């Protein structure tokens, strides 16, 4: 179950003779499961992808948080946009995003994906991936350190836990990790 130790909001434990029972709202149980199996699309663009790989590898071990990399958008919940987005790449990112099933979240990792980064004065670079897909988390850095990425993803997990899953979701303000 990863890093989740205490029970999330809306889940209560009742001690009864011989053990305990858990009562919960369906939403919180579903969200608990969702946030603990946040599968990410293995989709690296540039420098940040190397840090993303380092985060997934042995030293930082992203698996602890239930975040696994899947090679296909059909099985992914989170898209980490790790790198700059060029005009040639933008339609493909849009298509990958459209192929992902709802509910889905986009993480703009690093300066380039957030706002164009050092390439803001290049005409082949889209100034931030939020011009083509809705972004939930912006992570600061060029490239962000693995700790920073993990923090951003944990913030996203917190949000998922609080989200009404069965009711209609509303668009929330994005998280900005600095």
């Amino acid at each position, binding site marked *: 179950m990863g890093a989740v130790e205490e029970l999330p909001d809306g889940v209560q434990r009742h001690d009864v003779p011989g053990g305990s029972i858990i009562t919960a709202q369906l939403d919180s149980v579903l969200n608990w499961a969702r946030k603990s199996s946040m599968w990410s*699309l*293995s*989709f*690296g*663009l*540039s*420098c940040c*992808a*190397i*840090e993303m*790989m*380092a985060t997934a*590898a*042995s*030293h930082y071990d992203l698996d602890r948080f239930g975040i696994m*990399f899947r*090679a296909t*958008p059909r099985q992914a919940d989170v898209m980490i946009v790790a*790198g*700059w987005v*060029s005009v*040639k*790449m933008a339609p*493909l990112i849009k298509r*990958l995003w459209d192929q992902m099933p709802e509910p889905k979240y986009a993480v703009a990792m690093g300066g380039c994906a957030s706002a164009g980064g*050092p*390439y803001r*004065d*290049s*005409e*082949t*670079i889209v100034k931030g991936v939020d011009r083509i897909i809705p972004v939930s988390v912006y992570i600061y850095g*060029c*490239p962000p*350190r693995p700790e920073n990425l993990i923090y951003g993803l944990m913030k996203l997990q917190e949000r998922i836990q609080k989200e009404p899953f069965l009711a209609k979701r509303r668009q929330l303000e994005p998280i900005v990790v600095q």
Partner: protein
Amino acid sequence: MTTAPALETREIITQGMMLNMGPQHPSTHGVLRLILTLDGEEVVDCDPVIGYLHRGIEKFAERRPYRHYIPFTDRLDYLCSLANNHSYCQAVERLAWIEVPERAQYLRVALLELNRIASHLVFLGTFGSDVGATTVFLYAFREREHVLDLLEEITGARLTYNWMRIGGLPADMPENWDKGVLEFCDYMEPRLDENDRLLTNNRIFRVRTEGVGVVSADEAVSYGLSGPTLRGSGIRHDIRKFRPYEAYDHLDFQVCTESGGDVFSRYRVRIQEMRESVKVLRQVFEKLPEGPILTKTGKLLKAPAGEAYSQVESPRGELSFYMRSDGGTDPTRLHIRAPSFCNLTVLRKLAIGTKIADVVVILGSLDIVLGEVDR
């Protein structure tokens, strides 16, 4: 090997199929797209499509003072930022006739070799997962964290170091940094032996890599391949020996070659190079002279009109910067000869006639970085 037999001459007539591999594909190492024409499992044609990361980085140099461009070179080949920093600074130094102090030359060599080890470890990890050995990925990245810790101690960054300056280095090494590097050298050598036991002598690995994607020596030269890809075909060519720069002509190391020209030879060359880098690192700290580390240049550097061509041996091959100046504060043209770009040209030839699974292995063995290919 150059062309697969035509569909009509086959006994079993299969229908040709177009397969689009990438840009989002876990084994294309970035955003490379291969349009494969298949006949069953066999590749009939392969058309690599690049440019998904193009940002016109060469044009950027034309409106920036010389010093301001160094951070951009970090993001070319992000696995060996220091080699890019260095090649760029060396081009400006040649253009403006700036001498680098001796201590800085040795420290530069130490940084470059550490970065080479880090880069080859990423190759090892990703190549391991390409052939299906995921464990190697975890081991290689564990070792890489040690190198990154050392580089972070001196530069403050994990990946994009921005640590070379025109005329030397911005700061000397921190105290006891050399001890850390030597400790790392002692740590690294047994790890490479461990890797030999784990991967190099693994039977499945050998079957997947030996005799696959063979480049002959003549082909390798005519395609302009460089680095381990060229040396894997038996050509002893290394810029560190061919046109020695910095302190490399005072250091003793071997240029590793393998004669096979196949995927396994290219892999072997890279593993051998890591051992040689460890050897070089040990020598650097034996010979490291005292003295300044930076030649002072004016606040706003103006290079005399002319052209300069700087080449270094990056982990991927011959990395060159061609620079022209008209005497102003920024260059009029900067061209980057990216080794990955040149090495990728041979992919089409190697892929034709092989099976799809081998395309992944061949691509992995070329060790390309798309940030550098697309510039």
